[in-house]
């Protein structure tokens, strides 16, 4: 049923979920690891994640980057539950780079794959419980009673028999002298007081008062600012640099060639930008000088004519298609996409002979730290990387080659002063590391009853993992898992199934973009399945249901979304509904979109009813916010965004021509959460995949026009309507 490559990653995650078993392991910092602020004497620091001051303050050292997904609240809630403190008093401090903070499965410090709650729950619960047990032991020793006769509550240890109580702050110094317990017992879910409640996000006040500090907000004494002239075509090389014009501008300090281009270093950003404009660079544009999106599509189409590397196969799809009652064929295409986080990329580095400080909003600390060690020649312990708040990530700040950190380190090393490297919005839009474009050729066969008996899906797409440190783990037998996830493991019960893959030529840097492969496979699979339902003359919701008998969690969200949306009930004139369901990152999401289409083909999404099953959950309000967020992010891609190439150059520049969703286009979103005791699933990404197909299916229901290419611009809607 599922492809081997997809299974391997799933199994890996499942294994992680059952790790731990009450043993407190891997929670300790190696000696000499620097925290951003050194704890004062007497502070109780029972493990790498928790510090309790003599004043009763509780600090949580957070190893996951906060980029909007709410992790600076969800993880402290897990600690607070076992530690028995009010989560509102917890101060969050970003973790330094150290093995104790590594991803529990991936062996490096990284935030991604919607894994944070899934992988951290167990060990943070243990960390909180261990701290609580030590505080209990300290109080019991003070009173000369048994720890078992004491209990912890809201920052106090209480001895009920004698009504004595001691605050955590008063116990900190004594608790700090105790050995951590070898084993702890975690609360049963029925005893939860914090987990499962709508604890307000801890980072909200700072983000409303303008005091939250992002990477771009870092300023150091004597700091210079740099921008980089990067190649106009991916893979181009500078053959001649004339810097005289730039250096004449007052305030320009240096022009420094670095790995990614030519850095212009100045007193201020506006000056650096003037300097960059005054540079004269000759480029050898290299093999992609003629890259053109239309031609690339023809190239992908030609590749799709031949069989690819097999991602998943069962039965005999080809033979079954020959005898099918009805046969459907379709091609679905999706463009490259930029992540376009609101905070442009940036990094501050201060390289000195004896050490290097880095301030950066990153999702991948270990690689960035190691890259800085390599550039500076310093030992890894001499690199002090501080993770700032991320003004959006969406995957763009998890870069395997650490390019935006390397830039700042290289420039600071060259000029011997602290340097902030800033990307402009145009640098970001032109800068690559896109969601790859994909070409999808599908064929399906129906039997007399309209049931699909054969399904073939051929994908042409660049590999994200190829050439990265993750290639060995992610590319198997010529198939990049992230190019076929959500397609090769489609849950629909089709007896003869074949999914294969062509790795498209490289050159354009590509990267994980919120929901990764699912960002396009869900659109393709859920739209084509809708085509099958209509060809069979059946209701798209019921048709899906009938093919998901063995998938109760898919069915669960499908049924909930359909019921809450009033599927089948009359709508105002001109409105229609579309439905889609998709599993990603261990969670199941169904969405029903209510849509109308204007005279000029413009799509208006009025309402989205979203049902999510993410297993055991931490904070329902954050889950609702992430569903709204995923829907908005997915709608930008569904309706507006595309990166295209002409003469090797990206045709878009800024938010004028790389369009994203605006407030007036935001539908009313209603989120319904399935109550579940299953293992926790991810929540940052799973809201994205179903929205594009839900909208496309609603457009078909309204107009009879099947949109098979994203974005669904008014022009494409009109063309599809003419085709009928």
């Amino acid at each position: 049923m599922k492809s081997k490559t997809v299974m391997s990653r799933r199994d890996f995650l499942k294994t992680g979920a059952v790790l731990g078993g009450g043993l407190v392991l891997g929670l300790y910092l190696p000696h000499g690891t620097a925290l951003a602020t050194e704890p004062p004497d007497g502070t109780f620091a029972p493990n790498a994640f928790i510090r309790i001051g003599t004043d009763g303050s509780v600090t949580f050292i957070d190893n996951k980057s906060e980029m909007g997904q709410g992790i600076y609240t969800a993880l402290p809630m897990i600690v607070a539950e076992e530690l028995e403190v009010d989560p509102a008093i917890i101060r969050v401090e970003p973790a330094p780079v150290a093995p104790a903070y590594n991803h529990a499965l991936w062996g490096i410090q990284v935030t991604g794959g919607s894994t944070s709650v899934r992988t951290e729950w167990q060990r943070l619960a243990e960390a909180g419980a261990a701290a609580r047990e030590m505080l209990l032991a300290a109080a019991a020793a003070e009173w000369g009673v048994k720890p078992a006769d004491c209990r912890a509550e809201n920052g106090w240890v209480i001895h009920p028999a004698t009504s004595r109580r001691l605050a955590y702050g008063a116990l900190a110094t004594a608790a700090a002298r105790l050995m951590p317990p070898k084993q702890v017992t975690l609360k049963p879910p029925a005893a939860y007081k914090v987990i499962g409640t709508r604890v307000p996000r801890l980072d909200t006040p700072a983000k409303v008062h303008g005091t939250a500090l992002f990477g771009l907000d870092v300023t150091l004494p004597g700091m210079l600012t740099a921008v980089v002239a990067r190649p106009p075509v991916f893979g181009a090389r500078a053959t001649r640099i004339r810097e005289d014009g730039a250096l004449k501008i007052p305030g320009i300090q240096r022009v420094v060639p670095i790995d990614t281009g030519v850095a212009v270093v100045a007193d201020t950003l506006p000056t650096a930008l003037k300097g960059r404009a005054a540079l004269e660079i000759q480029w050898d544009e290299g093999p992609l000088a003629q890259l053109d999106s239309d031609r690339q599509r023809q190239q992908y189409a030609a590749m799709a004519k031949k069989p690819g590397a097999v991602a998943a196969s069962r039965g005999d799809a080809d033979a079954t298609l020959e005898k099918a009652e009805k046969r459907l064929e379709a091609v679905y295409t999706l463009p490259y996409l930029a992540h376009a986080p609101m905070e442009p990329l940036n990094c501050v580095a201060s390289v000195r002979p004896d050490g290097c400080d880095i301030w950066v909003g990153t999702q991948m600390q270990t690689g960035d730290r190691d890259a800085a060690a390599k550039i500076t020649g310093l030992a890894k312990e001499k690199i002090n990387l501080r993770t700032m708040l991320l003004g959006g990530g969406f995957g763009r700040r998890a870069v395997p080659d650490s390019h935006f950190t390397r830039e700042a380190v290289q420039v600071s090393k060259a000029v011997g002063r602290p340097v902030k490297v800033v990307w402009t919005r145009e640098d970001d839009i032109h800068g690559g590391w896109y969601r790859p474009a994909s070409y999808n050729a599908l064929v399906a066969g129906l039997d007399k009853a309209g049931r699909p008996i054969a399904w073939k899906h051929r994908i042409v797409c660049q590999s994200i993992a190829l050439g990265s440190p993750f290639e060995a783990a992610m590319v198997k037998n010529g198939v990049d898992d992230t190019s076929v996830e959500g397609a090769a493991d489609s849950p629909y019960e089709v007896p003869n199934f074949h999914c294969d893959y062509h790795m498209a030529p490289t050159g354009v840097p590509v990267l994980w973009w919120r929901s990764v492969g699912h960002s396009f496979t869900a659109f393709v699979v859920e739209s084509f399945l809708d085509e099958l339902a209509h060809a069979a003359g059946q209701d798209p919701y019921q048709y899906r249901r009938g093919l998901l008998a063995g998938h109760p969690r898919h069915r669960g969200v499908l049924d909930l979304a359909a019921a809450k949306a009033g599927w089948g009930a009359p709508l105002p004139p001109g409105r229609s509904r579309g439905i889609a369901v998709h599993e990603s990152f261990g969670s199941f999401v169904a969405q029903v979109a209510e849509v109308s289409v204007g005279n000029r083909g413009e799509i208006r999404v009025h309402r989205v009813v979203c049902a999510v099953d993410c297993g055991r959950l931490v904070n329902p309000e954050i889950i609702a916010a992430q569903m709204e967020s995923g829907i908005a992010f997915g709608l930008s891609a569904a309706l507006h965004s595309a990166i295209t190439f002409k003469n090797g150059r990206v045709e878009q520049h800024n938010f004028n021509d790389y369009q994203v969703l605006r407030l007036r286009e935001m539908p009313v979103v209603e989120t319904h959460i399935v109550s579940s005791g299953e293992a926790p699933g991810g929540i940052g990404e799973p809201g994205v995949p179903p929205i594009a197909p839900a909208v496309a299916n609603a457009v078909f229901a309204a107009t009879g026009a099947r949109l098979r290419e994203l974005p669904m611009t008014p022009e494409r809607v009109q063309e599809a309507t003419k085709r009928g």
Partner: protein
Amino acid sequence: MKKITFMVNGTSHAFTGDPEMPLLWYLRDELQLTGTKFGCGQGLCGACTVHLDGEAVRSCITPMKLVAGKKVVTIEGLGASGDHPLQKAWRELEVPQCGYCQSGQLMQAAALLRDTPRPSDREIDEAMAGNLCRCGTYQRIRQGIKRAAGVKS
């Protein structure tokens, strides 16, 4: 060089540098008022929105010469201690996610409510059309404006 004088959050300031320099960089780099954000540099995203004599402007494309004699208010000056009705509503509804665009959203919304204390959905749509949010907090922004205005959602 000619001296430009103006007020920022109630304090008077003087500037003698390049009159073409955008206000954004003066606020961020010289006054360390980093609540005002750089997002696009072209007035296309609204992250840098501040008030200039009460009007919402994009500070990334407002040259210093246009600030002469005017009153600038940034997010740091919106409410004395985060007590503007919009900030209160933003906290109650937990509007921010990554938070990067929110200073601009709040300043734009504050200018809207000053001119239109009880805005309709259409007026909110129009006023907020130039303030982008990639986290998709728009639904809560709309609710936040209505709550602050005392308009039913």
